[in-house]
């Protein structure tokens, strides 16, 4: 996927997010560190451009809630969490780049609960690559890509990687397709 394809998807998300609201002030978007933050911001920009609506935006780091951090050799870096509004009674859309096992989303739901009690949590991902290990399904999906576990989906964002794009990479082989 190149940046044009992605822009179309962002626009679709913008419409889907607002579809069921007369007044979207209840809605809040939370991007998950690291690349989910940028995907979330793109959607936010699309909503602003398309509807002129200002939606609350937050950033979530789920390191503290992960169930797998101790199986790694090194303790993972903790990144910033920034939710500058009250979550009580809000409709939250969590945004991440890739949905894989579902474990990160589980941690994110735990994390959100410690900020308050949202009315509803939905989940949006750019790429769903399958291989779920938990009973979790996305509410909004950019594209579904059936993958081998040997493959990796890499979502690139301009701020970190110099381009907006999505690649399917064979692990061991570099940047194919």
């Amino acid at each position, binding site marked *: 996927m190149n940046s044009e394809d992605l822009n179309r998807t962002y626009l679709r998300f913008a419409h889907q997010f607002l579809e069921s609201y007369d007044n979207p002030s209840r809605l809040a978007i939370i991007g998950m560190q690291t690349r989910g933050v940028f995907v979330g911001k793109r959607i936010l920009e699309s909503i602003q451009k398309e509807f002129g609506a200002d939606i609350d935006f937050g950033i979530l780091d789920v*390191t503290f809630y992960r169930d797998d951090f101790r199986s790694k*050799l090194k303790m993972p870096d903790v990144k910033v969490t920034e939710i500058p509004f009250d979550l009580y009674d809000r409709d939250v859309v969590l945004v991440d780049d890739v949905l894989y096992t579902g474990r990160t989303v589980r941690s994110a739901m735990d994390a959100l609960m*410690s900020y308050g009690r949202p009315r509803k949590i939905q989940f949006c991902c750019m790429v769903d690559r399958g291989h779920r290990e938990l009973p979790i399904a996305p509410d909004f999906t950019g594209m579904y890509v059936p993958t081998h576990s040997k493959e990796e989906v890499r979502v690139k964002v301009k701020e970190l990687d110099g381009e907006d794009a999505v690649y399917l990479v064979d692990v061991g082989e570099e940047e194919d397709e």
Partner: protein
Amino acid sequence: MNKPPDNYAFNQKHLLGLSDYSREDILYVLEQAKSFREILDRPIPKVPTLRDKTIVNLFYENSTRTRLSFELAQKRMGADVVNFSASTSSTKKGESLKDTIQNISSMKIDMVVVRHRSPGVPHFLTQCVDAAILNAGDGAHEHPTQALLDMFTMQQFHSDLRGKKVAIIGDISHSRVVRSNIIGLTKLGAEVVLCGPKTLIPVQVKALGVDVSYNLEETLAWCDVAMALRIQLERQDEGTELFPTLREYHEKFGIKLDHLDKYPDFKIMHPGPINRGVEMESEVADSERAVILDQVTNGVAVRMAVLYLLSGGNRVS
């Protein structure tokens, strides 16, 4: 450079003192502590990160702040905590330190926070047990988490400490806080001046790369941060006191309201507990220039960061 380089990896197993930590290690801990500081502001300030860990707080010496702060940090991260204080334990029955720690360790402890009046006890414990050891103050040697929280607090108003001027005022001789701070601050590139009566400043201290002043006015005019230390009367013997009276000490080395007007730039810190009217006038401690209570809050965050980093990934052999 205010952050560790990209290829940096934190590789410490214990926190015995800042002398074992590199500049990058210190910057990394402080950087991570920012994320933990944020947790404390959440409606539910608790994360499950250490719920698989058991920690013992081994306090052979009295403490309010440090002990509560450690315990709170541990509980905020969901660890199981057991507390030990020498006065109510088998130490009174003559059990040795090594036996005590090995017994506690047999109960499957992952981390030990220790305070002891003898310098070197944390080092000694690393040889007795497998757990991660955190020094919460050993004699007049080091008190690394206090220095880390002091530097964290300074970073909140001076994001880069290089070239910043820090004055440490008061009882230098008996202070472990000052040793850790000198080591840490000089590694981060700050300039440190020690100030106090001659009897409270050891002569060899310049070897640590700091300057000494016996003039409070000069020091306050120079510094960006003034850290007052508590006069530790319990460590001075009767008959050989190191200064005539507390009132005279306050007269010469106490920070007063006039100083705040005269030198409008410096911030005031104190590791606590404060003797109001000795190290500083009561109004000074309550003024807007004092960040003493911020230090206490930050202490919990810094200790959370240290506990997190030392709780370790899966150490595959």
